[in-house]
């Protein structure tokens, strides 16, 4: 049982001796365990924004996993004679500059964006937890060195560094480029999450149960893994959810600039770039991938916001 639940169980009114506890026990009411997670879930359940963003996230994930469910057309089936043709029976939103179905390309583009977002968020989380834990737990010179490293990495503007890094990768193979983009985003984006983990580790380190564990003879590793890590994860998870949204936006930006994913990978950023170049002829090839991208990024960010507000005890 994690320490949250232990504390919450101790606060259970039926367990505590006193008038309130005895009354409840006498009345025979079942004692309810109120933990932070339980309260947060209750708040989340009643928040419409949480459900809307969760639905959007589920929708985008379904689009990424099973694009065939959303469109019957092949996004690679491009016929130049259909260039910039308007909406018709076969294509809801018409055709783009190359004569490909705009809607089909947008649906299939969800896969690349979601893969990059999830993988880079996972990698970022891994790096941030390790680094933040080391900095927060050991303190002193380890903390000083890591904080200076964080300052240096933060000193480099994300877009500039990503451009410089990605320019070194000359291969055009889709899998290589996806891995490169994931790696670059994680290497440049771990700092915020690491700072959050570091501050929650520092506050968790002061708790009594850590001192008790140390007195019982637990080594550093055990304390970090069993006691501090579960209690410092919550703020990190919130930051990572929001970071997922911004990683999707960053990938689209890099593809827009031409240095992220490249053809034949289907990405919203590439479509937005082509759509923008020809927006005077037809606005739909620009509008459709833009809307998909905006809704996806907003969904993740709102989800992270809703979870953070639910877990924040100061807002009660």
């Amino acid at each position, binding site marked *: 049982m994690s320490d949250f639940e232990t504390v919450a169980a101790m606060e259970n009114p039926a367990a505590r001796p006193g008038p309130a506890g005895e009354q409840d026990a006498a009345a025979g009411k079942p004692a309810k365990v109120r933990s932070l997670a339980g309260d947060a879930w209750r708040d989340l359940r009643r928040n419409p924004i949480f459900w809307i963003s969760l639905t959007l996230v589920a929708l985008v994930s379904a689009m990424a996993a099973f694009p065939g469910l959303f469109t019957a057309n092949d996004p690679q089936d491009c016929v130049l004679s259909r260039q910039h043709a308007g909406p018709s029976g076969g294509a809801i939103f018409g055709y783009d500059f190359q004569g490909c179905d705009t809607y089909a390309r947008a649906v299939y583009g969800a896969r690349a964006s979601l893969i990059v977002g999830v993988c880079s968020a996972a990698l970022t989380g891994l790096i941030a937890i390790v680094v933040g834990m080391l900095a927060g737990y050991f303190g002193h010179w380890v903390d000083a060195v890591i904080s*200076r490293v964080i300052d*240096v990495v933060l000193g480099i*503007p994300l877009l500039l560094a990503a451009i*410089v890094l990605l320019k070194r990768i000359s291969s055009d193979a889709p899998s290589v480029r996806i891995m490169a983009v994931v790696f670059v985003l994680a290497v440049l984006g771990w700092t915020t999450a690491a700072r959050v983990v570091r501050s929650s580790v520092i506050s968790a380190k002061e708790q009594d149960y850590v001192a008790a564990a140390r007195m019982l003879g637990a080594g550093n590793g055990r304390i970090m893994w069993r006691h501090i890590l579960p209690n410092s994860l919550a703020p990190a998870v919130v930051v990572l959810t929001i970071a997922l*949204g911004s990683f999707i936006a960053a990938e689209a*930006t890099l593809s827009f*600039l031409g240095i992220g994913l490249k053809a034949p990978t289907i990405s919203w950023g590439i479509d937005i770039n082509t759509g923008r170049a020809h*927006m005077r002829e037809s606005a739909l090839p620009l509008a459709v991938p833009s809307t998909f991208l905006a809704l996806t990024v907003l969904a993740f*960010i709102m989800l992270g916001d809703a979870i953070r507000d639910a877990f924040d005890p100061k807002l009660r």
Partner: protein
Amino acid sequence: MFRYIVRRLLQMVLAFFGTTLIVYALMFAGQNDPIQALAGERPVTPAQRAYLTEKFHLDKTGVDGFFYRYFDYIKNLLQGDLGESLTGRSIGDILSAAWPVTAKLALIAIGVAVIFGVSAGVIAGMRRGSIFDNSTLVLTLLVLGVPTIVLAPLAQYLFGVKWQWFPATAGSDPSFYALLLPGIVLGSLSLATALRLTRTSVAESLRADYVRTAKSKGLKHRRIISVHVLRNSLIPVITFLGVELGNLMSGAIITEGVFNIPGVGFNLFRGIQTEDGPLVVGLVSVLVIIYLISNLIVDILYAVLDPRIRYE
């Protein structure tokens, strides 16, 4: 206070060397044959090769040679000589041509962010939970969430192409009016963050004890807000805006690209596309210096405004 400044200066120097080394390494380490890359498709005679090797100090190989070239570069940088780009044009010239445009753009953006963001944030902070508060929250969420590559072309299409309130692109030597739309687009992101920051700050300050004391002393509401609350809640906002100015100077690459503005970001991106190593390293070094200096100024300003920071 003095020790604080000294400590920050040392941190800045360290960060400067770290960042420039990383950028320099990324652009120049591992290049196969930079002299051939310079010449492009044409063959290079041995005499030309010898001259260029001498000029760019390429005769020293290995890690030793790399650091020799790096320190040579830093020495030149600190003397103000940024070198030449691969096209032969002096980087100092490119920078001085591109700088005024980016500076104008950044000033418009910061102006928009300060005027609209801070004032709307103060009002939203004072009236928490009202319709104004909720609607500004939703709007800022949209601006923060929707990426620039969606917002900038959308603004360009709606206000430049469709309704034609502004010129769609800026072009070389743009007028103030032509820079207005890209400035607003650029500033909207800073505006959203400044608004949220001000709102939280003001709301927290309003719950403080000194506000309660002031109210119970009978001070007018307006005086409480303008003299007591604002002074304390604007501190994080000022520091944010200072950092943001440094950020904006780093060339809003997307906005400058979309609106075709020949600023620093645009030149930087062009340099990366054409693999112009000296140009990229030169521009990024200058931008990093500006970013670090603006951070330093903001930190010192923060220490001046908030005495609690000085003694840590």
